[in-house]
């Protein structure tokens, strides 16, 4: 009982203004992080401008845990580009490389087939049932650069 009384006393003794200032400061930090994130979304034109690589299907180029910077421009999608896409009905985005492109004459629509560098076969098994090609609306962005991945350091590499 005495301990609870002490806690209540210490709460009462806090200056209300100080607490309010701290709460507002915290709110400012959170909102500025949100502003930067949304701003990046606008600048890069991609729904998620920074992604983390989740699987080992693009090794040795991208390892699990690598950070990728994405950009989505109106440029047409061409073979060799590394794209991040969502399969219909699946939440998790996949980062793979485009290996086949068929661009239609009149509409400019593209049929795209992707494959992970480290996978044996193409991604048709990952697409939705009966889906043979990806289209532009599935693709969230192109990878333009990567951040340094600290996991792949000398401790793991026995060759040094």
């Amino acid at each position, binding site marked *: 009982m005495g301990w609870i009384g002490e806690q209540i006393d210490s709460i009462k003794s806090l200056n209300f203004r100080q607490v309010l200032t701290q709460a507002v400061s915290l709110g400012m930090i959170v909102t500025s992080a949100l502003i930067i994130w949304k701003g990046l979304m606008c600048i890069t034109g991609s729904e998620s401008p920074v992604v983390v690589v989740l699987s080992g299907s693009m090794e040795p180029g991208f390892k699990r845990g690598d950070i990728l910077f994405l950009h989505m421009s109106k440029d047409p999608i061409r*073979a*060799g*580009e590394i794209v991040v896409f969502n399969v219909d009905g699946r939440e998790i985005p996949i980062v793979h490389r485009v*290996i086949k492109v068929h661009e*239609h004459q009149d509409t400019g629509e593209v049929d795209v087939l992707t494959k992970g560098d480290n996978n044996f076969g193409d991604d048709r098994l990952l697409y939705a049932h009966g889906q043979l090609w990806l289209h532009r609306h599935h693709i969230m962005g192109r990878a*333009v*650069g*990567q*951040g340094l991945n600290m996991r792949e350091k000398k401790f793991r590499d026995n060759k040094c």
Partner: protein
Amino acid sequence: MHSLGYRVNALLAFAVTILALICGIASFSDNFNSPSPSAEVQVLNINRFRKKLTGDDEVSLTLNISANLESLFTWNTKQVFVFLAAEYETPNNALNQVSLWDSIIPSKERARFSIETTNKYRFIDQGSNLRGKDFNLTMHWHVMPKTGKMFADNLVISGFRLPEAYR
């Protein structure tokens, strides 16, 4: 102001900023490299050329691919992804790019190669347009850096033509 917590925080923030700066400079240094790669491709044989049951044409080829991509490597290069794509136009499609073969080059020592191979991925058209079709074999390379911006380029080798009739 001089407690351990503040000091560690200041040190960490500074370290991360410097690291990001170094990564940026490393990436920037890649601009000073002017690469001069060379490549040559020959179609040695058309193994199969038929129309599948779905109505799409399919070709199987044996290729001789040789290239020297040593000049693409800088100290900031992690690997070079190289692939050969057949590129052609059809009445339905303004552009078709079909990757026939690809490879990952992990280091400069392996960047000069000459191989003979059948196509790794199936060369299938959308439709039946490949008889007598002229096509290019374009060698694309994507340089993946240890850190920073990736860049890509390609070399078009034209003058290939598929046979007029199935075999």
